[in-house]
């Protein structure tokens, strides 16, 4: 253990695999809820489109829930909106989504990314929110988000079409990923310049649809490139059962892997072999949303006992998650370390 650290120091140390004074609470994805939206008067959908509201809502993760990080990019659609995907913005109680039934690309040659794509208000919103948070919370880790090319391909081609392409035509699939990856790199770098300490990089080669071998074939090398090109620690996020690819992920040079509750903490720590840090795993739909604080604490303790380096929910939490369940995450970490 080192002397008392600030939240920011604690998170950065954990991401770099350095000693910490206690296990940091990190949310690589959203911890916004409808109650927190009311508390700070920053409701969806506006909090996804107006930087002041985005920053204010995101900050509650630290000020009200006690996380060591603040993550303002609640959704996964900001870049997709910027490149022309149709967005269903929804209401306060639901997530904005890309209308993937209305794809904007048919073939890899259709992919045209304008050089000024980041000038779009939905891309700028994130950058400005990060600047606000950096200014207002100098001692808290600010985490951005840049979507990976696999996720972008789902959004711009449609899930079914892109998955079929990945089965039928390896060359075309790689061409699509190559053409989309500049979004990931450019947005990651821009967020670093805006003041982010780290970025989450969701790339939904999820356990239910994409095998570990596919991850290796299509994404491992590209993710290693991202780790070289984006100048801040990257937290890769992939939902589902992913133990079969954790060994590959651990070789990419990314700082951490944000992992799902479908993977046991012990087996996951073994799978990554100390080459990448883990964060996440606390179940959202069953535990955080529907069970009580004691069940939340049990899951947190299981991660702490397995040596998982950062504690947090497995993915963006349901917007109706009870606040008492979220606060139980911090209570469990504090109790585990015997702190007040």
């Amino acid at each position, binding site marked *: 253990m080192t002397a008392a650290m600030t939240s920011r120091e604690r998170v950065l140390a954990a991401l770099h695999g350095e000693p910490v004074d206690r296990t940091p609470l990190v949310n690589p994805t959203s911890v916004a809820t409808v*109650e927190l939206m009311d508390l700070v008067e920053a409701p969806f959908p506006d909090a996804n489109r107006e930087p002041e509201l985005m920053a204010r809502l995101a900050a509650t993760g630290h000020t009200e829930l006690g996380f060591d990080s603040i993550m303002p990019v609640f959704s996964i659609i900001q870049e997709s909106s910027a490149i022309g995907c149709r967005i269903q913005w929804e209401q306060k109680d639901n997530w904005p989504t890309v209308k993937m039934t209305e794809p904007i690309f048919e073939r890899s040659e259709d992919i045209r990314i304008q050089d000024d794509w980041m000038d779009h208000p939905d891309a700028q919103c994130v950058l400005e929110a990060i600047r606000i948070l950096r200014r207002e919370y100098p001692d808290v880790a600010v985490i951005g988000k840049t979507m990976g090319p696999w996720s972008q391909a789902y959004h711009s081609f449609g899930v079914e079409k892109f998955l079929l392409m990945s089965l039928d035509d390896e060359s075309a699939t790689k061409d699509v990923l190559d053409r989309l990856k500049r979004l990931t790199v450019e947005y990651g770098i821009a967020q670093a310049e805006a003041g982010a300490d780290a970025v989450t990089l969701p790339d939904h080669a999820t356990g239910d649809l994409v095998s570990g071998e596919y991850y290796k074939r299509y994404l491992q090398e590209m993710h290693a490139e991202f780790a070289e090109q984006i100048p801040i620690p990257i937290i890769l996020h992939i939902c589902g059962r992913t133990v079969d690819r954790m060994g590959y992920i651990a070789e990419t040079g990314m700082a951490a892997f944000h992992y799902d509750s479908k993977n046991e903490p012990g087996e996951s720590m073994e799978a990554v072999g100390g080459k990448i840090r883990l964060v996440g795993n606390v179940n959202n*739909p069953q535990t955080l949303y529907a069970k009580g604080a004691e069940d939340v604490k049990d899951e947190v303790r299981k991660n702490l006992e397995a040596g998982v380096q950062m504690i947090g929910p497995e993915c963006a939490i*349901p917007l109706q998650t009870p606040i008492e369940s979220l606060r139980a995450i911090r209570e469990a970490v504090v109790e585990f370390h015997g702190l007040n």
Partner: protein
Amino acid sequence: MQIRTDLGTRVELVSMDPHCHDATIGLYRRETADGPVGIVHSYSSVAGIAKRLGFLAEAMCVLGGLERVEGDDATVRLPCRTWHNAALKRLFLDCFRVDPSTAPEVKPLEAPDTRSEQLIRVEPVGGGRYRVGATDVPEGDDSRAPAIARALVRLAQLEEVDETTVGFPCGERHDALIGALLVRAQNLRAALREEELTASRGVLTAPSAQE
């Protein structure tokens, strides 16, 4: 406003109240020396929110037979001093259906069945038990009473005494509450579907799992 740590456990949440600027309003259960109480609470500061919380608490009292806890317009409790969680969740949701420009009214212990021509009656038989009966059952048709009794058991987690008799575990009468539940029990499937939809809304799914 700050996060309240004295609310206890959240029982149910309505994310967007159409009658009060889409405010999010919850029902919380707090343990007290006098037994559990229900607190109707919102973190919203929109105009009229205090009045709205008071109205919902009042609706719970009228529709469900709860009592106000002295000194707080938005805190209620059951006269039996216990807590019937599933029944109160359902009651809380139903209070949002009450037109706020009208006074809530207690539901009678009988109602025409929505799926037949039968009239469903619920009769207290002592010890917190209620017998479900049906009249006007056409010859050759089955009585809907057993189905309604099963629906009450499922909807409000009541005890199943026999085919047509259900009971509150506290052993006390809850006439108003059973009257309110009777309305929903007649279309159990719709009530459960509504619960499922509510539970799935606001859950972010991976792009690969989105429709």
